[in-house]
């Protein structure tokens, strides 16, 4: 589905990604894990076309991916960003509608129904301004908005960030459910354990490089994992 | 001294222009026999907010120079031709000053123009450093001639002359009609021009039996004069005296027409619109009957009629800037003629003793006192059947006042 080959990029001459390879296959949940500041968000920006590559290539759905967010969305690579980035001045309904601004417009009504089925809470608050939602609801909205574009691959950037433990649990359940319908998901997280529980495969990133990769179970069992996180 | 041929038509204007051009561009050898031309500075704002007025002023000066040269130049100087050195005052005093400096360096013998009071004030002062004669064309501020500058002269009437004449004319017109107007409302722009005028009117008019109902100040630019009109409607004065600039006067006249405010007369002083041909052409209904006391040419003067024909032949309205500048240049030429030298001191002297009469304005003999031409006076005009007519004083009038106006 997604094939990333030795990409390098950064900001203003400072290299953040130093040659990353990874791939996401059909129907997979792939977890991309790493501590703060290792380049996960930069990787996402590169994938969704917000950041130009210095070298390397991204192939999506068999085709090379053009370097703009518009091209990424058109191809079906949908990125739910860190911090949600929902439109706070607009209602839930409108937020969802804009999810299908460039893709999936024809079946907007059907998709919206699906999102509301997935997130019944959102349906109750359809006309409420998104900025007034709680953190968890905002995260649901961001994911729902991403689903409106009929993604072929969904990138979730830190979906558990800032949520209470109970909500985190709920969120991971939800991700599992979305995937169960056949949607491939790339899950970028710092929440290691729960991510590994639902992921098929995982990559660990440290300092702009993939340092570990393999099946989620293998990685979960690897003693190096604790080192990567807790420095023990 | 003859300034203008008696028979003029469009073709001769064009030819004259071409001839003047040819003279200017002719090789020096051909002109070697002639005396060196006398440089005259013409200062007008032809860019910026006042650009349109400046263009009229320039046109007036150009026509005068053309006519003087065609009539043989300055005869006491061997027929020396006048040569225009034009300066764009760009509608600001500092640009005016800057151009005065340039003209001084180019060796002009005198400067004519300025148009707006601030430009005239600054430019005449800059010229005074070089004892360079400066003839103000329009600027009405009393300060211009009140500073004791030896070099500064104003051919046209200043503010106090204008207002005194305006009041006098109004009183006479009213008396002649059997005093139909008793109550007055003053609408004035909130600058010193309008405020000063209103104050003067408010103290003077009651002496003649008028009752001042209200003084209404309006800002420039005004976006909306509905409320002013509303007040006027409720006051219902016999006479409305507006002293505002063009845009506001147009707005006021139109709003009054719309709101059916119909006083016995609208009598304005030094107003930017009421004696403006564009206003009359564009809003014949709103303008009809409006009176103004302002600069105006002498409608009976044949030469003025000829100049008017030439101006209108090139598609320009004959606004008062044109005859004022024309006359000022002619006045200067007369002074040069009498001075017999292109010498600044002598020109100033000649201006001080001037008795010049060959102008286009409804003035008597020119007589300068402290730089102000005491022979100058404004006239009262009225829009009658779409024409601007002089209605007072009778020495210059080409129509009788319709008072009260049938509005």
């Amino acid at each position: 589905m997604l094939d990333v080959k030795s990409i390098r990029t950064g900001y203003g001459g400072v290299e953040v990604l130093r040659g990353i390879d990874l791939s996401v296959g059909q129907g997979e949940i792939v977890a991309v894990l790493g501590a703060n500041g290792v380049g996960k968000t930069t990787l996402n920006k590169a994938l969704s076309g917000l950041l130009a590559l210095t070298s390397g290539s991204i192939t999506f759905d068999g085709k090379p991916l053009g370097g703009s967010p518009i091209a990424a969305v058109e191809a079906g690579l949908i990125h739910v960003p860190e911090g949600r980035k929902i439109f706070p001045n607009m209602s839930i309904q409108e937020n969802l509608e804009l999810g299908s601004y460039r893709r999936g417009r024809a079946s907007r009504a059907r998709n919206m129904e699906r999102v509301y089925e997935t997130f019944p809470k959102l349906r109750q608050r359809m006309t409420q301004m998104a900025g007034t939602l709680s953190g968890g609801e905002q995260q649901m909205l961001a994911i729902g908005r991403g689903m409106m574009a009929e993604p072929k691959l969904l990138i979730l950037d830190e979906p558990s960030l800032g949520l209470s433990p109970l909500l985190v649990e709920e969120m991971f359940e939800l991700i599992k459910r979305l995937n169960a319908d056949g949607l491939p998901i790339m899950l970028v997280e710092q929440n290691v354990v729960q991510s590994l529980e639902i992921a098929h495969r995982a990559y660990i990133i440290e300092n702009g490089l993939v340092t570990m990769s393999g099946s989620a179970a293998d990685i979960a069992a690897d003693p190096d994992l604790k080192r990567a996180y807790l420095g023990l | 001294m003859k300034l203008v041929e008696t028979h003029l038509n469009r073709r001769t204007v064009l030819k004259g222009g071409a001839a003047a051009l040819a003279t200017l561009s002719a090789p020096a050898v051909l002109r070697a026999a002639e005396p060196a031309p006398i440089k005259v500075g013409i200062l007008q704002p032809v860019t910026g907010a006042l650009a349109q007025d400046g263009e009229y002023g320039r046109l007036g000066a150009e026509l005068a120079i053309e006519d003087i040269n065609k009539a043989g130049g300055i005869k006491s100087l061997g027929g020396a031709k006048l040569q225009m050195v034009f300066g764009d005052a760009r509608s600001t005093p500092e640009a005016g000053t800057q151009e005065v400096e340039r003209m001084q360096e180019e060796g002009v013998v005198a400067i004519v123009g300025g148009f707006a009071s601030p430009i005239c004030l600054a430019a005449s002062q800059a010229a005074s450093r070089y004892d360079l004669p400066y003839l103000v064309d329009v600027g009405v501020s009393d300060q211009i001639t009140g500073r004791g500058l030896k070099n500064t002269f104003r051919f046209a009437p200043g503010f106090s002359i204008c207002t005194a004449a305006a009041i006098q004319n109004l009183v006479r017109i009213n008396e002649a009609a059997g005093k139909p107007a008793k109550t007055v409302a003053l609408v004035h722009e909130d600058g010193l021009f309008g405020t000063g005028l209103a104050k003067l009117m408010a103290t003077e008019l009651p002496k003649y039996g008028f009752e001042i109902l209200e003084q209404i100040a309006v800002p420039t630019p005004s976006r909306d004069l509905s409320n002013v009109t509303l007040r006027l409607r409720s006051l219902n004065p016999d006479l409305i005296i507006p002293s505002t600039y063009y845009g506001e006067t147009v707005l006021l006249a139109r709003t009054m027409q719309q709101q059916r405010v119909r006083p016995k007369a609208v009598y304005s002083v030094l107003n930017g619109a009421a004696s403006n041909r564009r206003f009359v052409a564009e809003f014949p209904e709103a303008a009809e009957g409006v009176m103004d006391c302002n600069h105006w040419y002498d409608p009976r003067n044949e030469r003025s009629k000829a100049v008017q024909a030439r101006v209108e032949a090139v598609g320009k309205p004959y606004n008062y800037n044109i005859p004022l500048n024309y006359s000022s240049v002619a006045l200067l030429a007369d002074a040069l003629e009498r001075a017999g030298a292109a010498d600044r001191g002598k020109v100033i002297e000649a201006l001080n003793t001037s008795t010049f009469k060959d102008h286009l304005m409804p003035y008597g003999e020119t007589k300068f006192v402290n730089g102000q031409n005491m022979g100058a006076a404004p006239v009262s005009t009225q829009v009658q059947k779409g024409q601007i007519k002089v209605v007072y004083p009778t020495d210059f009038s080409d129509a009788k006042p319709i008072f009260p106006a049938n509005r």
Partner: protein
Amino acid sequence: MYSPTILIEAVINGLLTGAIYALIALGLTLVYGVLHIINFAHGAILASAMFAVWGLKTLFGIDPYLSILVLATVFFCLGYGVQRLIIGPAAKGEDGNILLITLGISIFIENALLAGFGSDTRSINSDFAFSIVEAGPFLISSPRLVGFAGSLIVTALLWFIMSRTDAGKAIRAVAREKLGASLMGIDVGHVYALTFGLGCAALAVAAGLLMPTFYVNPRIGGAFVNIAFTIVVLGGMGSIPGAMIGGLLIGLVESLSGLLLGESLGQIGIFIIFILVLLLKPTGLFGAKA
């Protein structure tokens, strides 16, 4: 003291004038709300639209109200082009640059108008301009009633565009969350240009509604820009209902303070409101928190 009739009529006048102010402020607030820039060319664009109305009427006899449709389209395209081809690329995202560029555009337009039309003040004369509606003791100017209605219609239309169409929603999205919007595949550059175009189209409508009762010269924009700034600040920078209510309020304040304090002091009142709002509640009546 004035009679109630006059006071009521002053209130009506204030509202009628305020609606046009609001329309002029609308474009300014829209552009500020989305692009976060103060468009210094706003007044000059208004002046050029007014000249366009004047020109269509004078040269081809087209009624100002008819020309609105054409001019709104033309000015929308012009605005779109100017933002897309000049302001966007030249500014490179720096506020200081945008300031200089809109200033440059404003100098250019004003002087192009000066070169083309001279500094004369011009106006249109039409019979309709002088017609009035008599309602009891009140005489209400018909063109200004039309202006009021037109302004409300445009505001409603804009409100409809902003809340019901994808393009409008995209504009609102970009206004608050550029990154989130571009991740939805919204072309931010296009949205900016769209917004600028809408702002210019609103000015064209305002020009068409103003010309029957007002005049134009190359510098006329200045007469409206300061008041538009005040309205934008009062209503809250970026708020459409804020612009409308702010416009009506300012129209009312101007009218009543003009009547009670004198027209000149009324102008001072407006600036004092402007300063007080900035100091005490910079977000205005409806503005979003910074």
